């Protein structure tokens, strides 16, 4: 998200607070749907601003949101998306790289803080003891991080694409409980299995090198966000 988009985003967040609860729910659904559409972040915020003006004006006139934009919010959003320029291939790739860099820098930081080697390494750094400053990455760590990255993309996409379906509309209560439980148990079991089978160290990195790489990835994300990302 570049600077101009960020300013607009902040203004829209403020305007959002003026919405009555029922309109806020509908606006959130529409914004979620627009977030995963193939349009630029800037266009998403511009449309959000226009929609806020439309809905707030209707609110002021005492009209319901359905009176101004109809009842089929998904179709309304689809028409909007079709009327806007699509993201270029370059822009899509930059977005993807930007997200990956941010995710990897966060995972790098988490690994740096939570890795079992970290405590020893930091103890050695503080005491000045010249010993092992290497942080290990096991096969399990790498597989877990790949799964976390893929799951994050899938969850964001799923939420966006199903934003107009209420939970009750999607499935029944028992079915939801079974599906949710199965997913939870599956994920937990998967991570336990990965941890058990993937204890073998794949590679080791010096703690300073890991810090530098993590920082570089975060800096790369910031650069892409502020300067390169297409408007």
């Amino acid at each position, binding site marked *: 998200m570049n600077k101009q988009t960020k300013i607009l985003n902040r203004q829209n967040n403020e305007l959002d607070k003026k919405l009555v609860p029922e309109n806020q729910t509908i606006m959130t659904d529409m914004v979620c749907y627009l977030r995963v559409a193939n349009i630029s972040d800037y266009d998403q915020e511009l449309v959000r601003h226009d929609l*806020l*003006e*439309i809905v707030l004006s209707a609110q002021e006139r005492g009209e319901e949101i359905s009176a101004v934009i*109809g009842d089929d919010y998904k179709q309304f959003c689809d028409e909007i998306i079709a009327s806007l320029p699509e993201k270029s291939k370059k822009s899509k790739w930059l977005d993807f790289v930007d997200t990956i860099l941010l995710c990897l820098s966060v995972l790098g930081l988490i690994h740096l803080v939570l890795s079992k080697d970290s405590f020893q390494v930091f103890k050695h750094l503080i005491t000045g003891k010249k010993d092992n400053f290497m942080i290990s990455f096991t096969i399990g760590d790498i597989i877990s991080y790949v799964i976390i990255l893929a799951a994050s993309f899938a969850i964001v996409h799923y939420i966006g694409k199903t934003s107009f379906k209420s939970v009750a509309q999607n499935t029944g209560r028992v079915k939801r409980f079974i599906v949710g439980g199965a997913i939870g148990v599956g994920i937990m079991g998967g991570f336990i299995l990965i941890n058990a089978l993937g204890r073998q160290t794949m590679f080791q990195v010096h703690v300073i090198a890991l810090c530098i790489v993590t920082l570089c990835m975060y800096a790369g994300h910031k650069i892409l966000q502020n300067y390169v990302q297409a408007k």
Partner: protein
Amino acid sequence: MIPSQMLKGTLEGCILKVISVKETYGYEISQELQGYGFSNISEGTIYPLLLRMEKNGYIQAQYRDSLVGPKRKYFSITPIGEQELDNFVGSWKLLERAVNRLFTGGGKEE
């Protein structure tokens, strides 16, 4: 009520006509159209069309302060839009003449 399928091809031209008269915004356009008998035209119906016309360069938008808080988008017609409006009027006259001849028994064209 005019069926939406029938409106589809003509609404864009009608919106252009409203904008060509004076600089205006979405809600005002919908009210103006309703005043002329387009009873089922809400602001939401015309918003995607306005975006498309803006993308095609027929109209240009300018944000101005409004009383409710967010800035309101005002549209004005561009030279390309004026040309498009002329094309629309020409096409509409041809269609109108053909339909009228068919329904009023005016006979086939020579």
